[in-house]
């Protein structure tokens, strides 16, 4: 995926019709009027960037036009088509945006109706990420989703017929007590419909969410690690058999052209600009982020101020470590030569013993100059990242 070397653009559209008990994104509910006011403010934030100016002092504003745009949230599909249109128009006015910009949109099954599909196509959406989560009713019920199993099928079918370049289905696995068979059944149901992309997320009980709360009270238990590992490996192996490449811990595509080229930028330190409450941005040696909650974010913008809450300067070591962490989460792995030339660390010679051991144990391999995690390695990517020393 070298087709999109320019910076990426992310818009955080935080509205959902109700809040799922496992969700730890910044989300809220709000009626169309509230949504309209939000879009007004978002357009104000966009305008602050007029002329391609990135909001953080010290960050090197890239000069290339943006070539990916990701509409995330939240549930961007909940917004009326004209709100999305207004937003995109504002973007085009303020920022350099490539003609072939790869636009992704997150949608929930209940919003997938022909009229909306048409409108999104009109906007130029080529990657539709559909939050089906499961095709089985009892799983959807447990997850507190608003749509039915029937809607999961129907929406995916409709989306696939609507002419997007790539349709992706989001699935969740690792529900308490979920069996291998139950999960594999979901995968089979998804594959039967023929999406080009799948995101399979292992359920996590985040602190501060209703599920997290129930877990802390002992009412809900995550799957034991061994079972989590089994499902993880099952996912990767099963999908590999079906010609889905697991190009990242949780992401699978039928071919390189169907990968999420926007997300890819997060993993290889391509600059990205995030707008909207809680959005993060990165360029060069800086990462910064907006006020998390909608109120203070709006207040700042209404006062004509930047909604950026804070920023961090990344030292070369920070950057190198991030490169390592992120690369070890991907099937492409880490290009050792480029790592050495950028960060001055010969990773393998600095970690001879560890690297040996990990290879012998079948957790990593070195493949045409790249350090690549095996599937079992991917399952413990955090452990791998901790194993290497990059301070030499």
């Amino acid at each position, binding site marked *: 995926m070298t087709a999109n070397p320019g910076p990426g653009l*992310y818009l955080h559209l935080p509205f959902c019709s109700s809040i799922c008990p496992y969700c730890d994104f910044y989300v809220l509910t709000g009626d169309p009027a509230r949504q309209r006011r939000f879009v007004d403010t978002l357009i104000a934030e966009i305008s602050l960037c007029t002329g391609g100016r990135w909001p953080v002092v010290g960050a090197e504003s890239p000069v290339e036009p943006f070539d990916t745009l990701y509409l995330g949230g939240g549930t961007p599909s909940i917004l009326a088509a004209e709100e999305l249109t207004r937003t995109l128009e504002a973007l085009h006015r303020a920022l350099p945006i490539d003609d072939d910009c790869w636009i992704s949109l997150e949608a929930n099954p209940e919003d997938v109706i022909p009229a909306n599909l048409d409108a999104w196509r009109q906007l130029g959406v080529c990657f539709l990420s559909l939050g089906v989560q499961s095709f089985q009713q009892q799983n959807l019920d447990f997850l507190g989703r608003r749509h039915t199993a029937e809607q999961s099928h129907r929406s995916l079918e409709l989306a696939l017929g609507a002419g997007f370049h790539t349709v992706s289905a989001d699935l969740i696995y690792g529900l308490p007590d979920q069996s291998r068979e139950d999960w594999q059944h979901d995968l089979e149901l998804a594959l039967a419909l023929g999406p080009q992309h799948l995101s399979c*997320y*292992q*359920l*996590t009980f985040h602190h501060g969410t209703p599920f997290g709360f129930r877990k802390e009270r002992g009412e809900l238990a995550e799957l034991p*690690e*061994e079972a*989590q*590992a089994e499902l*993880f490996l099952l996912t990767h192996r099963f999908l590999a058999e079906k010609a889905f490449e697991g190009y990242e*811990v*949780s992401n699978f595509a039928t071919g390189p052209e169907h990968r999420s080229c926007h*997300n890819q930028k*997060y*993993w290889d330190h391509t600059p*990205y600009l*995030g707008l909207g409450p*809680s*959005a*993060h*941005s*990165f360029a060069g040696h800086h*990462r910064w*982020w907006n006020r998390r909650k909608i109120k203070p974010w709006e207040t700042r913008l209404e006062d004509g101020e930047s909604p950026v809450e804070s920023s*961090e300067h990344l030292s070369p070591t*920070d950057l190198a*470590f*991030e490169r390592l*962490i*992120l690369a070890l*989460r991907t099937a492409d792995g880490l290009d050792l030569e480029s790592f050495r030339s950028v960060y001055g660390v010969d990773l393998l010679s600095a970690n001879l*013993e*560890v690297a040996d*051991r*990990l290879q012998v*144990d079948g*957790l990593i391999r070195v493949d045409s100059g790249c350090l690549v995690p095996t599937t079992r390695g*991917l*399952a*413990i*990517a*955090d*452990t*791998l*990242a*901790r*194993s290497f020393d990059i301070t030499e």
Partner: protein
Amino acid sequence: MNTIRNFCIIAHIDHGKSTLADRLIQRCGGVEEREFRDQILDSMDIERERGITIKSNTVTLNYKAQDGQEYQLNLIDTPGHVDFSHEVRRSLMSCEGALLLIDAAQGVEAQTLANLYLALEYDLEVVPVINKIDLPSADVEKVREEIDEDLGLDPYEAVLCSAKLGTGIDEVLEAIVHQLPPPAGDPEAPLQALIFDAQYDAYRGVVMLCRVKEGTLRPGETIRLMHTEKEYEVEEVGLLQLKQVKAHQLAAGAVGYVIAGIKTVRDIAIGDTITAAERPAPEPLPGYKEAKPVVFSSIYPMSTDDYEDLAKALDKLALNDAALTYEKDSSTALGFGFRCGFLGLLHLDVVQERLKREYGLSLLLSAPSVRYELTLEDGSEITVDNPTLFPDPNHIDGAAEPFIKAAIMMPERYIGVVMELCRERRGVNTTYNYLAVGRVELTSELPLAEVLFDFYDKLKTVTQGYGSFDYELLDYRPTDLVKVDILVNSEPVDALAQLVHRDKARPRALRYCEKLAETIPRQQFKIAIQGAIGGKIIARTTINAYRKDVTAKCYGGDITRKRKLLEKQKAGKKKMKVVGAVEIPQSAFVAVLKADTDN
């Protein structure tokens, strides 16, 4: 000389020795309680807290008796714990009499008996004192019976008092004056003075406390220490009346201090005899025995940066603690430290506690060991107390370990469990006899090594707190000694090696393995933890590898958090000791080395 009385108070722990001493001092010195505590006992926090007197606090009291006569009473304090029994002996040798203090509610206990035997060994006149008569549970009659039957003393000579309330204190003082004999000795004879204690003073050097048996000690004279064979010039002598009070001489019968320009307590030996260089006594006073450490442990600073501080702290402690020995030691797992020798477990505890509290050091101690005697195949004999120095077993012909004679007193109903405990601990010649109705004294010959390992706690548990324990060292006896190594991924962790009896090797090794398995975090590979004797594996556990350790999502907003979390975990790893490519956190060593119990 007829108006001098040299005496000590002997008692089981907690029977009120310190309290009674305080009362006597107050009654004679007219000192406010708070003031005198500040004066005498300020540096003794640890001892106070533990209710154990470790260093003698000897004091001279002036007492005007009911017959109108002024007496000089020298209260010679004795350490209250078996670890310091050599010091107890020195103190007893300095006295003509002793108050045997018994708790009116607890009655006679193991140490009461042991102390009495000691006092009788030194021909001391013993007056029983029944303390704590104010307690509702006090049973004076029962204690009188025990005094009669267990101790063979005259129960009607016993003085009753409450040290806490101050009742009966005059009676105690009168008993000291009238029932204890005055010292004998000739001030003109060649000098013989017994050193029974010594303290280090930053300005004056070593202050020796001594009892002049014969002759007279005067400033300006040259003295000779008969065992260490060193000579010094006396700078100052005096009495210990709360503060040091200078005197022009100490004549036969006196108890006082001597300052003679001696730099450290290591230059002298407690129990040595001071004589005059000009006209030396023909021989030293009898009973001298060197204080030898019997328990050994390596002390490591938690943070290797603290090594220098540990070295300095030990130097300082040693100024005042001649029995503490230490030498450099190092471990691949724990870095540099010191191999230390102690008089016993309590001594070890006190030193460790002081290093932590007074010097703010965090420490790791290896499992305590006794000193073994080994005969090698070439006939030579060596001693080993440090597992890392244990020779190749093929070259060892025989091993011997120190035995103690343990005396345990308890109510009759616990005989069974205590006999079982002694059997488990390889005790031999375990016998018991009834002291009084329902009370038993059990004696057993036990390997000291078995007592080091949570024996006292076990005893307290099985006797529900009613068992009391005392011991003396006996001799060395043949033993089947092995070195148990703990291996992590086949590599030995030197700091965890131990010398143990073959029968104890497997349970001990298994415990260590299990503790390690609980505390070493999982890593990306499987970790084998084994206990071994030589090449033979006798215990094993495994820590399974991580199978799943990755977060589901890592997009724009997650990256900073992820990096910081991993950095933190990595920093934690940096502090770990690496053995066999396995990172072992400090906490694992702490957990294992603290786990000094077999189940």
